[in-house]
Every structure is written in structure tokens, then in C-alpha cells.
């Protein structure tokens, strides 16, 4: 398996660019103003996983956006997923 230097040689610039994109996205949302949106709340919550120091950050980010409940919903009212769980009242 590649060592950390190999991985950084391969992916550092790409990851750096993506990180700046995340920062710019958040600046853009904040500049826009308006009402708080559950998707952005979930996004900010997911960012906390990056500081966990554990090697399961990707899983934690995905779980931060996921429906945490276990029972089927009564009926599907849409076909689409929006990327973040709106909460039980919105299902």
C-alpha cells in the first residue's frame, strides 16, 4: 500500500482545491442570506466529522446526512432524494 507521501503526491492538490470549494460554497450560502435550510444545517453538522481524528470520516459524513429512522414511511410522495434528511415531520 502507498505511504502518506505517495497519497499526498497523488491527491493533495485535488483535495486542496475541493476544500477551497467547500469554503467558497459556505461563503456563497452565507452571502445569500434568507431562511435557514435543513440541508445546510446537515452540511455544517457533517463537517464536524472531519475533525474526528478517526479513519471513518467518510462514513460519519454520510451518516450525518442520513435518515436515522428504521421504519418504512407510510407512502412515497416524491421519487427524488435531496441529499439530507429533512426530519420525520417532512417525510
Amino acid at each position, binding site marked *: *500500500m*502507498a505511504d502518506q507521501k*505517495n497519497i499526498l503526491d*497523488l*491527491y493533495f492538490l485535488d483535495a486542496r482545491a475541493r476544500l477551497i470549494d467547500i469554503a467558497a460554497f459556505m461563503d456563497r450560502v452565507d452571502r445569500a442570506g434568507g431562511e435557514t435550510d435543513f440541508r445546510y444545517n446537515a452540511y455544517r453538522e457533517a463537517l464536524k466529522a472531519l475533525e474526528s481524528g478517526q479513519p*471513518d470520516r*467518510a*462514513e460519519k459524513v*454520510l*451518516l450525518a*446526512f*442520513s*435518515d*436515522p*429512522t*428504521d421504519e*418504512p*414511511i*407510510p*407512502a*412515497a*410522495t*416524491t*421519487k*427524488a*432524494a*435531496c*441529499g*439530507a*434528511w429533512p426530519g420525520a415531520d417532512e417525510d
Partner: protein
Amino acid sequence: MRYIEPHGHMVSRTTDDYRAMAMAGCQAVCEPAFWAGFDRSSAQGFYDYFCQLTQHEPRRASIFGLPHYTWLCINPKESEDLALADEVLAIIPEFMDSPNVLGIGEIGLNKNSRNEMTVLEKHVDLAGSNDQLILVHTPHLEDKRKGTRLILDVLKSDSRIRPERCIIDHVEEHTVGMVLDDGFWAGMTLYPETKCTANRAIDILEVYGNERIWMNSACDWGISVPLAVPQAAQEMKRRGNDAQYIDKVVYQNPIEFMSQSPRFIRPVGL
């Protein structure tokens, strides 16, 4: 390089895509039944679609030297209408003996509703009654974790269903563990935004190993990349994986799973 495209919705793709895939080393393409991007208005629409999958599309693929296989079902996106689903389920057996049909798929859940669960259970019963392989679609984005758990519970509750004959597709970091731990196969779909990137899929292989797992493009009418699998193989090489390791993931593993169907013919593998 040689590879299998184990999940591509080729009815939505151009002949240029077939040509590019063949030139990139594709040895066979497998096409699960799926949602057309709009709701079909009747079971007759599905009948025509199943004819397309079992008769027309294999001819189109053969022009490029590609064996074409398929899976049949009504997609979970159209499972909210139970009456329609029953009508479609009734016509599937008529096509199950077609020479390119590998099994029932891509069944599963979309929004994790009760009706979707009912139709999933009926598909599983159809597969169990006819000793068919199963290819499972897991829900998108925020619905995936819950839906994957519900699907695994349905499959495990039917004693006729053997996990090694089911592939659970579209796994990501938060679902791959539960799928592999229960003995199922796992599929990683390489999408630009909504599923796995090539690098994340390669990470998953590093963490969970390369047994009972494959990669696919799930190319369809939406934003997707028909050459995603060979592109991921190239990235694996860049990361230092050797040719044998890559070949197992993109070629041998799909063959191992699909060879459980007597209809799957092992490609020559040039």
C-alpha cells in the same frame, strides 16, 4: 485491460458508447431493468421494455462484439402503484427463460415506503420461487442507510434466498460493511456526484478487501460515465495496485457472481 460492465442501462446510451466501451476492453455488458425517467402508463409499456431488453438490445450490443445480459423487474420508483406492480410482476415469468436473463433486478427500495416494501417482497418471492439471482438497487442519498437495512432484512427473512446469490448495489462507506458482513455481494456505482467516486471506491476496497465486490458505471439517461469502470481501473493502477488485483475487481469478480446463472457464458477475455 479487460473488464465487465455489470450494470449499465444501455437502452439510454448511444452506439458511440458501445464502441468506446468495447475499445476500452469491455467483454460483456449487463443491464438491469430500471425507471425510464418517467412513469410508464401501463403494464404494456413494461412488456415492450422487456422485449427491448431481451431481444433488441442484445442485437445492438452484438454489433460491437459485446455479449448482453439483463435482469427483469418493476423498479422501486414505480412500486407505489400496487395494482400496476402486480400486473408487471405477472408478465415477468414470460421473459425469465430468455437466453440473456440472469435474474430479478434491479429491485429494492427508493423512498422506503410500505408499498415499496410490499413490491420488494413480491419480487423476492418471484426470485425464490424460480431460483433466480437477485440484483438490488439501494436508495439514494439520505435514504440509503435505512433502505439498505430494510432490504437486507427482507432478503434474510426468506429462507430460499442465499446471500451469495444476491448483489446489493450502490453501496457506500456507510452501507458496505453491513452488506458484506451478512454474506451478500456488494456493487459500487461510480457516479460523478451522487454515489461513489473512483477514489472512494478504491478506498473501500483497501478497507474492506476485494472479495464479493464489483464496480459499475450504472450509466443511464442521467449524468453518468459509461467508461467509469476502466477509468477507475486506471486510477487503481496509479495508486499502485497491480494488474492481477485490478483484474479481479473489474473482470473476475463479476464473472464469479454472474456465473451462478447457467445463462452467463464466460467471455474469452482478450
